[in-house]
């Protein structure tokens, strides 16, 4: 559905050119939810805007929904829907009107657009507010309308830019359900997010982007397996560096990082490593504040690839 090769975008700024997207290779399959994960400013939105024809490509090549992005942007537009971070609707216009206009811009007859709008209003549970100006909508209602606007012309591929940013947990869960329903109906979804939980829970496959480059990609499970078997988190009282120095040399530790007195150890088998960690620290006289065994999270993937925690970077 999407194939990109060495996709790049350079912005001119007063301080010289800035490469916001620095050679991105992506492959998105039909019918999957593809997550583009990264901190703010990593190049997620820039990539998304290039793939959705909004921003010219500086160099590289891409095929989107069967058409070349450079040479056939007009054909790409008929196949894709795009939901921007900013939203989609004017505050004084009712949601239903925006939906109908959107359909007609794709060449639908008025009757067909009205019918399709009614289906979407029903499906997205907007019946209560569809005929009111959108300024009266809740955050969740507005976001669902944005998705509806993107879906009016039954696109094969829907781009969602940060679909749940700013939503409360309940609205977020609901948005996830909507996205899953889309996939179940055969629509390919390409979304950006800086929430790890979202990428993990919602996406079939993920690419992690940092400083304009893809640093990892695969299914959430594949990515987590790349990190190591388990993660042991050792909490100390200001002895993080000391503990790190000791543990790093142990043969069962594949990788280790320390920050603020907390050491993260990447090990193959957590159950057998735990007692060894205790023994090493005990014999060195380092007092433990806490000790826990975790499955690796996507944050561990990000940490390993970039040396920073996504939570700190975001």
């Amino acid at each position: 559905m999407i194939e990109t090769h060495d996709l790049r975008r350079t912005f001119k700024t007063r301080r010289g050119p800035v490469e916001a997207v620095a050679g991105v290779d992506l492959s998105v399959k039909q019918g999957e939810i593809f997550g583009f994960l990264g901190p703010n400013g990593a190049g997620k939105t820039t990539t998304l805007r290039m793939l959705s024809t909004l921003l010219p490509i500086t160099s590289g090549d891409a095929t989107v929904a069967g058409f070349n992005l450079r040479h056939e942007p007009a054909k790409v537009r008929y196949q894709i829907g795009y939901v921007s971070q900013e939203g989609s609707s004017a505050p004084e216009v009712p949601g239903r009107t925006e939906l109908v206009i959107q359909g007609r811009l794709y060449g639908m007859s008025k009757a067909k657009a009205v019918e399709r709008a009614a289906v979407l209003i029903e499906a997205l549970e907007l019946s209560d507010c569809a005929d009111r100006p959108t300024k009266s909508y809740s955050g969740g209602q507005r976001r669902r309308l944005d998705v509806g606007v993107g879906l009016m012309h039954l696109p094969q591929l829907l781009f969602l830019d940060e679909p749940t940013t700013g939503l409360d947990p309940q609205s977020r869960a609901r948005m996830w359900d909507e996205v899953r329903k889309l996939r179940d109906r055969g629509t390919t979804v390409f979304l950006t997010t800086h929430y790890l939980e979202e990428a993990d829970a919602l996406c079939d496959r993920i690419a992690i982007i940092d400083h304009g480059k893809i640093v990892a990609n695969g299914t959430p499970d594949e990515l987590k397996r790349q990190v190591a078997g388990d993660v042991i988190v050792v909490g100390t009282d200001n002895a993080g560096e000391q503990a790190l120095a000791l543990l790093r040399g142990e043969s069962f530790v594949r990788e280790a990082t320390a920050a603020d007195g907390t050491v993260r150890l990447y090990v193959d088998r957590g159950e057998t490593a735990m007692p060894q960690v205790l023994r090493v620290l005990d014999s060195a006289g380092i007092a433990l504040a806490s000790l826990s065994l975790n499955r690796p999270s996507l944050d561990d993937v990000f940490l390993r690839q970039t040396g920073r925690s996504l939570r700190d970077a975001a």
Partner: protein
Amino acid sequence: MKLLQDTWLMFQRYLMVFLRNPAWVIIGVLQPVLYLVLFAPLLKSLTQTPGFPSGGAYNVFVPGLLIQLGLFGASGVGFGLIAELRAGVIERFRVTPVSRFALLLGRALRDILTLVVQSLILLGLAIPFGLQPTVSGVFVMLGLVALIGLGMASLAYAAALALKSEDSYAPLIFTLSLPLLLLSGVLLPLQLAPQWLQHIAQANPLSYAVTAARDVFNGHGADPDVFKGLAIMAALAVVGVLVGARRFSRAIS
């Protein structure tokens, strides 16, 4: 024809947005009405001054006032566009296959309609004061206002898309529209101006529109100046539309 259909759709949408707040039509007319009531009477005692065009104070002043209405009305349209830009509406339209000309023309046609309605209101209000309009004069006048509206609104949209913020857009239009107004001869005919000022005014396209509007209201409807004014405004409109549509099709980042 896709361009016409898209333009019509966009026009309908913006007209609907506008009709939800019809008070703006009245607010837009308020300023020229104040000029009509509080400024135009001053001109009565000037009509005998050498150089003042014949035809009476109101037949000289009101045509210029309509040009001013066109200039000010059209240059302010960018504010609405900036709000839509912020709400993501423009991005949403740009992702659809809609014609980039239609994105501009649909809006500009709504602006022209507004200006024409405002012009008719102003002309109606001016009659009790002493304006004596002719049918052909009114038609040519509305044509001039429509062309100014199309040209200036298109340029205003291009500026709004380039600047993306009210904070820089507002000073720009205020800074540009004041000299355009002063050098157009709207307030006082340029025939009263010293030579050097008249020369500078020749560089202002709007001064030709004012001359054409005055001629047609004062029995010189067949004067070459009328065609000249219309032609220059038509050229301004073409340039404006090309610049504006180019901006709509370019990336907004």
